[in-house]
């Protein structure tokens, strides 16, 4: 084979199986729990930051994750019933990642993400109704029903959105961090007149986005200018049908990508939400305090196909099963049931039932919400309607286009 087969450049010799957070051998992943390595191995007796959190906080995490899963299940159903058009990328399997990272932030720390964005939107506080209505293309959706699954924007919750061009959101994350730094260091107040705060921006990206030029420019700028932005790689091992080691160099040790851009790089097991908090929260605090960027490789997994029409020829069933056996919701549930003993099975069942009800309600709401009026076609292109562009403000749907 020629150069199109990845390998010689990957110094796999420097990454013997079982080292680092996980190691890949013949396209298989060894989870931290299995090989006894990585962040799962903690010094005995060393306190975990998450241990200090009250029960209510962890129960809230569990609830947030279950809500995302039930919401996504309901989406899948709606998609099959042709209620959702175009594309729909589910977050099932990755719940701990959005919930864990977002709960390591302040509410007014900005985030920006890619198109697999329902989970972040819900974790950041968007109502399930607004999220589902958007997917149904209804005017009650967060983007007025004009965007769909990839367009989850929520300004009040500092969510700067889902983005359909892979990687394009990462420089925006750097820019959001730049704005916060500018408020703090140049204006010495916030743009709306309040005191300036030390903020951290999160720019989420998939492992596929690692290969886009935009990311590398963003990382260089962030490193150069000391922007408090964290590039959070949601490493679910696949970019559509392309396994990570077929698409990117140094797949076994992604944090090396951070080195050249002068920023801290870390690997985190993203299936265990307590572990995410333990590792990620201190990193957020450091970036905030020192106004520095960071790069995080968070190992996660999507249980479903890339989108709703994906035959998944590219991965083995037992790989999916392996990740499911470390399901993030089950892990936290176990912790709360058996270690903290702060919930009962009945409590968990109740949470699940409530989340199912919220998801069902969101779909009912979306179903009965009105479709956008045809005039919505020409709103929001410019701040003001621009005369002589088609259709003009006077254009009424069904009537003759005045410019015809």
């Amino acid at each position, binding site marked *: 084979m020629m150069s*199109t087969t990845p390998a010689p450049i990957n110094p796999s010799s420097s990454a013997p199986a079982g080292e680092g957070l996980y190691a890949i051998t013949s396209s298989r992943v060894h989870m931290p729990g299995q090989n006894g390595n990585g962040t799962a191995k903690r010094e005995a007796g060393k306190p975990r930051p998450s241990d200090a959190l009250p029960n209510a906080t962890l129960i809230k995490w569990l609830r947030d994750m279950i809500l995302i899963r039930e919401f996504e299940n309901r989406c899948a159903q709606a998609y099959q019933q042709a209620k959702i058009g*175009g594309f729909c990328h589910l977050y099932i399997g990755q719940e701990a990642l959005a919930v864990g990272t977002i709960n390591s932030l302040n509410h007014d720390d900005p985030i920006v993400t890619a198109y697999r964005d329902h989970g972040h939107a819900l974790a950041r506080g968007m109502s399930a109704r607004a999220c589902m209505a958007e997917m149904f293309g209804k005017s009650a959706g967060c983007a007025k029903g004009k965007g*769909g699954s990839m367009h989850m924007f929520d300004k009040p919750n500092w969510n700067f959105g889902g983005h359909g061009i892979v990687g*394009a959101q990462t420089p925006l994350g750097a820019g959001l961090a730049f704005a916060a730094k500018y408020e703090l260091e140049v204006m010495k107040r916030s743009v709306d007149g309040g005191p300036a705060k030390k903020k951290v921006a999160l720019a989420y990206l998939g492992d596929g986005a690692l290969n886009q030029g935009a990311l590398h420019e963003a990382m260089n700028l962030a490193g150069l200018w000391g922007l408090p932005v964290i590039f959070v790689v949601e490493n679910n091992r696949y970019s559509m049908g392309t396994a990570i080691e077929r698409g990117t160099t140094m797949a076994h040790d992604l944090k090396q990508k951070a080195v050249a851009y002068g920023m801290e790089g870390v690997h985190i097991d993203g299936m265990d939400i307590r572990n995410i908090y333990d590792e990620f929260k201190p990193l957020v605090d450091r970036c905030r305090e020192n106004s520095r960027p960071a790069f995080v490789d968070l190992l996660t997994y999507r249980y479903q196909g890339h989108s709703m029409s994906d035959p998944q*020829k*590219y991965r083995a069933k037992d790989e999916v099963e392996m990740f499911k056996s470390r399901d993030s919701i089950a892990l936290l549930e176990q912790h709360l049931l058996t270690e903290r003993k702060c919930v009962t099975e009945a409590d968990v069942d109740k949470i699940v039932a409530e989340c199912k009800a919220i998801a069902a309600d969101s779909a009912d709401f979306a179903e009965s919400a009105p479709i956008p009026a045809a005039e919505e076609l020409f709103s929001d292109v410019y701040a003001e309607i621009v005369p002589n*562009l088609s259709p003009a403000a006077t254009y009424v749907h069904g009537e003759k286009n005045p410019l*015809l």
Partner: protein
Amino acid sequence: MPQLTLVQAINSALDQEMARDPRVVCLGEDVGLNGGVFRVTEGLQKKYGADRVIDTPLSESGIMGSSIGLAMGGMRPIPEIQFEGFMGPAYDQLVNHAARFRNRTRGSMTVPLTVRVPWGGGIHAPEFHSDSPEAIYIHNPGLKVLCPSTPSDAKGLLLAAIRDPDPVIFFEPKRVYRSFREEVSDEDYTIPIGKAKLVSEGADITVITWGAMVFQCLEALDKHVPEDASVELIDLRTLHPMDTDAFIESVNKTGRAVVVQEAPKTCGLASEITTIIQEHCFLNLKAPVQRVCGFDVVMPYAKLELDYLPDAKRIAEAIMQTLAY
């Protein structure tokens, strides 16, 4: 002759040309193992190997740039960009390099590549997945731009594109991908780049269009325009360089014209066609040339999609107004 969809016809053209010419290489995101997002390259990697049907990383700039290098090095690369909206990251390579290299090197180096790009709306998807950006690329000298509407045209034009000495953008109307089948010859045949197709002959008015809009125009003629109106329908097939003779001759005969495009109205190809008509047919025109276009807005998602896209009724209305002028 086999009955093929647009997807199958393109696949068969790629297959034949890969068999015929070892310099032909297909590359793009998931084109190999998965056969591409629309399954256009299905089966080709199995047949020609991973060295010739190459799964790339998610890197449009890299895909386009390395295709240019391959072409400069003597190969015949056929990069696939998954959707027209993702040409953004590849734009610099395509427009500033592929398009201008022949000129920049004063003809000593050339870039014979064919970029395949699913194009246009009608599949209920939002922006980036439903846009029609042909005018942007037509506007840049050095690129040829094709947009076939039928399986047999697609095969002949794709073979011509791959053998063309200059960079060609091959836009594939997604809405047509699996919408119908027709007989497509097994033979090796090309359709010349720059030749329009007369879809129906008529005496009273000329309708000029391309891509999926051909079928909206046919529906307009079928259902909404009275039978006594004699309409000449032209499918451009090649958007650049355009077959201007075909529609100039036609409009000089009919004296009336309607141009139909999916893209937003302002500065679209329809504007250029309208201008050419007034330059060459002015004294024969019996009515102002009308344009039926998408609106000057961002392509909306699902529920508003059909309000955006020109449909048979809007097209018929313009035809009737022009006839009645």
